[in-house]
């Protein structure tokens, strides 16, 4: 590959809090130099990147890649292609595949598939319990040996608090991380959207925010009690943000993520029975949305993850009550998150921290840095680029997003993963 000389970028490295304008020289798949006094070699490709940002390759710690088992929705190849198109060079994949990732064979399969696809790195999350059934623990040590970076029964909560306690205690002994899909099923079951004004207007059974708050509180209590590390997935309520904020202040080892739809949309998005806005947890109220934004602002919420959940029209184009939960998010996350910068909620550096460094830190993964000498793993972001979310522009195999047809602002224009250009709109 010809050396690449990216000029006049805003270089963002959250680890060192570096935020400067300068140039980056990429040679032999490595970041050869950073700064404003680089003398590039002769055969270099010069690219003027004025107005653009360079950030470490983003990491999405919550995606559903659907392979093995539901390749018609997404494969590891199409999912990682969507990832790099969105600026992500690493993703953590949830275990609710078919078969469930509860054995090292499935974990290894996922990693190998990602390597042979050659776009983004995939870090498998294995299930907490065998078959996601909530009855017996998966073999954590064996799974970690095969490459699992965390454990979650995502899609379902671990309903039995005794089982969750066991999982946390056992994980603690191994230094493993438990990711909680916090949902009290006795309150949520049968619900298909947030319980409130819109559920009444649409005549649909709602999910009260208490279903999330209670589950978050329960898991935070158990994390405190066991001393284990806990990560709360897809925070969507004002109550959950407050509980996590308080727990952190008390020294509980808890981290949290939210998804762009929880700070970009409210329950109003499902008006007209729009199944593409049907997610779990559901889109909430404006008050919840603002609380999520506050949580991001003050660091209560450590990570922006997408909960990328591809579904084909078979699962989506039907009655709202029976349509599947979930929306794709890898390619819309960055433009939606950039709104937080435009609104003055986060500095660019803090945004990148939540989308690159923090997820890696929480999962214990190296990288998330822009520094000379390391393998080039970065993305170039044009915060002003406009793009239309449509079939032609999306790399994901599925199209289930409420942003379909909308124009969004800001996107990754170049993604370099492990020294290789995997997404390029620059030349």
């Amino acid at each position, binding site marked *: 590959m010809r050396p690449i000389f990216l000029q006049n970028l805003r270089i963002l490295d959250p680890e060192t809090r570096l935020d400067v304008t300068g140039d980056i020289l990429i040679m032999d798949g490595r970041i050869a130099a950073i700064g404003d006094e680089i003398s590039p070699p002769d055969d270099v490709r010069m690219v003027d990147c004025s107005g653009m940002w360079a950030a470490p390759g983003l990491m999405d710690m919550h995606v559903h890649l659907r392979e093995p088992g539901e390749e018609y929705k997404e494969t590891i190849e199409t999912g990682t292609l969507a990832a790099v198109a969105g600026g992500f060079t690493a993703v953590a994949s949830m275990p609710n595949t078919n078969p469930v990732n509860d054995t090292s064979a499935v974990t290894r399969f996922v990693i190998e598939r990602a390597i042979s696809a050659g776009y983004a790195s995939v870090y498998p999350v294995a299930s907490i319990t065998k078959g996601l059934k909530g009855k017996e623990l998966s073999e954590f040590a064996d799974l970690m040996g095969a490459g699992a970076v965390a454990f979650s029964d995502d899609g379902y909560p671990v309903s039995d608090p005794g089982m969750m306690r066991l999982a946390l205690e056992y994980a603690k002994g191994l230094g493993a991380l438990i990711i909680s899909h916090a949902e009290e099923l006795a309150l949520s*079951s*049968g619900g298909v959207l947030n*319980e*409130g*004004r819109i*559920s*009444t*207007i*649409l*005549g*649909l*059974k*709602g999910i*009260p925010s208490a279903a999330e708050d209670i589950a978050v509180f329960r898991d935070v209590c158990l994390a405190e009690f066991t001393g284990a590390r806990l990560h709360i997935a897809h925070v969507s309520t004002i109550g959950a943000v407050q509980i996590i904020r308080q727990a952190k202040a008390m020294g509980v080892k808890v981290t949290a993520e939210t998804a762009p739809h929880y700070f970009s949309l409210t329950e109003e998005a499902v008006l*007209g*029975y729009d199944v593409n806005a049907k997610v779990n947890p559901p889109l909430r109220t404006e008050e919840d949305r603002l609380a999520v934004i506050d949580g991001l602002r003050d660091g209560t919420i450590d990570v922006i993850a997408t909960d990328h959940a591809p579904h084909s029209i078979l699962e989506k*184009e*039907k*009655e*709202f*009550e*029976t349509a599947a939960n979930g929306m794709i998010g890898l390619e819309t996350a960055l433009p939606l998150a950039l709104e937080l910068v435009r609104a003055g909620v986060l500095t660019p550096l803090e945004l990148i921290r939540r989308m690159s460094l923090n997820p890696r830190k929480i999962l214990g993964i190296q990288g998330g840095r822009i520094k000379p000498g390391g393998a080039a793993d970065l993305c170039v972001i044009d915060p002003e680029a406009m793009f239309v979310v449509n079939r032609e522009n999306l790399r994901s195999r599925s199209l289930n997003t409420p942003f379909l047809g909308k124009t969004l602002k800001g996107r990754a224009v170049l993604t370099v993963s492990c020294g290789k250009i995997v997404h390029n709109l620059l030349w």
Partner: protein
Amino acid sequence: MNRLSSRHILSISDLGQKDIELILDTADSLSQILTRPIKKAPPLRGRTIVNLFFEPSTRTRLSFELAAKRLSADTVSVSAAASSVVKGETLIDTAKNIEAMRPDVVVLRHPCSGASHLMARYMERAAVINAGDGMNEHPTQALLDLFTVKRHLGRLSGLKVAIIGDIAHSRVAHSDIRAFAKMGADVFVSGPATMFPSQVEALGATVVLRPEDAIKEADVVMALRIQKERQGRSLIPGVREYASVYGLTSERLKLARPGAIVMHPGPVNRGVEIAPQVQDGPFSVILDQVTNGVAVRMAILSLILPETV
């Protein structure tokens, strides 16, 4: 000829005040057909109406069928058991297949809220009438309720309407609240708090916990049917207690304004929502509601198929 502003009748929200007035006036004139010895007029001759019922409902289905036949339309009725849904066909495919056979109107009753909206999105020619979708709406029932009230009390605006019972799961209540509020009535709802939808004010009603407060000075008192089990849970401790706290007894009815009427969308759990003497008493218009249902549905059918009227 006047037209409705909406091609389909999916929700009361789709209809303006003018639309509703037009429907009620049309029903008024068409109702005369029902009193003639030969109860048939020609305006919808050659038109085809499909009644697609994914949920059993003898009364609503019969009412629509009679309304269509009175106006000389051809009707076909399909019920859930015979439908291809059991063979795995999706509602969208059903919609496309029905559309391919060129009916003029599809009357849909479906257990999922929003089903008629989904079907309407796939109907390029035919009009869709929501005959009850999940716990969402039952707009034609609300229109016949408006019609019944107007017949008995002469007006809708300024009336106090009390609706007592399971508001959350009643599609009739969801449509009635919207419809009465739209026509200028003040709607009060009451019942056990377990049976209120959250933020019911969004529909245009005021919540009062004590049924007496709702009934007091009311011009219209409507009791709703209690469905005992929801998601495997009873929302009330028992029907005996319900009848004693929320049942429409003669005692409670005395709180209403003189001349107030008593309504119920039926079928009634005798002695639970309404005491038998009230149900069969002089203020009950429950059977008028049934009669008026045919006239109102005749009006709706002729107005969404206006060219031949």
